[in-house]
């Protein structure tokens, strides 16, 4: 099954709507609740990243009976040093974002901890693509 969600950069009140909707879908598909939790946490972090850093983004989800593949592709500043960004605690979040309670620098590490495969590619000045895969436990 295929789903797509749009994400608006800067709109913190809507941050999390995609992961919430995906959660409902996965519940209806009777996916194991531990897998649902991993997916929701990973997607939520990725969604917030788009809201906090980028201008806009799209979330593309493909689900089959064994796994879920999510691509988050945004238009934004991009990431200069991906390895650095993957470090816990490292954040380039603006003052405003931190004041809202986001930008603690745990986003990408959290995604890595909850996914089976993760690939982050980026072009500075253009945008970032996050590609994640989670296998369903039987």
């Amino acid at each position, binding site marked *: *099954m295929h789903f797509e969600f749009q994400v608006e950069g800067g709109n913190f009140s809507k941050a*999390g709507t995609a*992961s*919430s909707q995906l*959660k*409902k*879908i996965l*519940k*209806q*598909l*009777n*996916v194991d*609740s*531990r897998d*649902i*939790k991993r997916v*929701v*946490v990973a997607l*939520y972090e990725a969604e917030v990243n788009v809201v906090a850093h980028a201008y806009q983004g799209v979330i593309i989800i493909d*689900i089959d*009976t064994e796994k879920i593949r999510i691509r988050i592709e945004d238009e934004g500043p991009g990431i200069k040093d991906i390895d650095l960004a993957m470090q816990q605690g490292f954040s380039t979040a603006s003052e405003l974002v931190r004041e809202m309670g986001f930008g603690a620098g745990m986003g990408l590490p959290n995604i890595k901890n909850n996914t089976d495969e993760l690939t982050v590619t980026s072009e500075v000045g253009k945008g970032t693509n996050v590609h994640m895969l989670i296998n*369903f436990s039987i």
Partner: protein
Amino acid sequence: MNVCPTEAIRVRHGKAVLYGDRCVDCGECFRVCPVSAIIIDHDDFNFIFDYKYRIALVPAVFTGQFPEDVSPQQIFSVLLDLGFTHVYEVENGTALLQEAMNEYADKPGISKPLISSFCPAIVRLIQVKFPALVDNILLLKPPLDISALHIREEMRRKGITNEEAGIFYITPCAAKIAAIKDPVGEDKSPISGVINMDVLFNKVYRKVKTRNNQSCSLPVYTDLPATARCWALTNGEAPLAKGRTLAIDEINNVIDFLEKLEDDEINDVDFVELRACDESCAGGVLTVSNRFLTAERLRNHKTTTPEPSDSEHPDGFRHIRENHAEIRKNITIEEVKPRSIMKLDDNIAEAMRKMEKVNRIMQLLPMVDCGVCGAPSCQALARDIALNQANLHDCVFIQKILEQKGELSLEESIKIMQEIWGFGKTNKYRDLKGL
């Protein structure tokens, strides 16, 4: 139909149909039904006379129903007049529960936050709508069952068997009835029967009024401590639990909170008290008095000085601490199993197929949630259709379109309405000319 938090109600042939697997016994439907079509079934009062010893298990909320000038002692003496042989307050069980709760919180490997098991509607809500959170439920019996255990022990000590002694709970809501008749986490309840609070209130109040000026001997009675008395009110449990706690009442507030909890958005909370009713049990569906007045009365009740307890009095029970060890052995409940109503199918491939069907159907529906089809929302109807429990032409919008295209006759259209709403609603138009 629309107030049901789990969309458990449909209209078929003019009657409300409740889907048992979706219902959590919150009683919201009972509250709002304009024709009182939904009743909360309880045991006939005279059923108590099947037993030689008849114990009324009374929640503090019951005494809170009466105006301030009616003391709990008066209420209990009337209960004895009505036929009970003993009266015991539910909240006596709270002291032991509080101890057990705080020990439980220190166990290794428990999921935080712990969710109180006090409100049976909430336990059921979690089972059906938030199955991932069943591991957070505190697996301890509510005060109701703890007090019942104490009573059974006391009866046993006096040589009275379970068949001779009937324990009757005066219930403020449907959920507690369900918890007794169909318990989650235990096989059978120690309670013999349930009497609805509104019914008993009428009986008692009438008697209290008529014997107002007669002198009567009041039963020996000791007031509950304030923490016990307020246990069933909002924020009655939370302050007594360890760590950071929250108290949330009213089922929609609870649902919002549980969604967030499931999304892992709540951190560092150790214990949550969740109640389905606004003002918790004071706002139970079977209560009579205004919930805020009831809560106020219970919170501000002036404790009378404790009298020496007459434990050898035949109508009395010893202090619950006397059975501390025995009760603590039996205070846990078994695991609460999830029974999700959200899944379309157990098999993921089948569920996907059904979901695609639901999505296709939703595109044809108007998405106005009008309810004319007998389902609470367009999404619910789409689900019902995908599960072969309803038809696309149940939707009144679709009917109009089909009529316009000539694919549905007016006769067939009316027939569909009658299948859903019964003949009653369409009969009144039969002889009407020129509306």
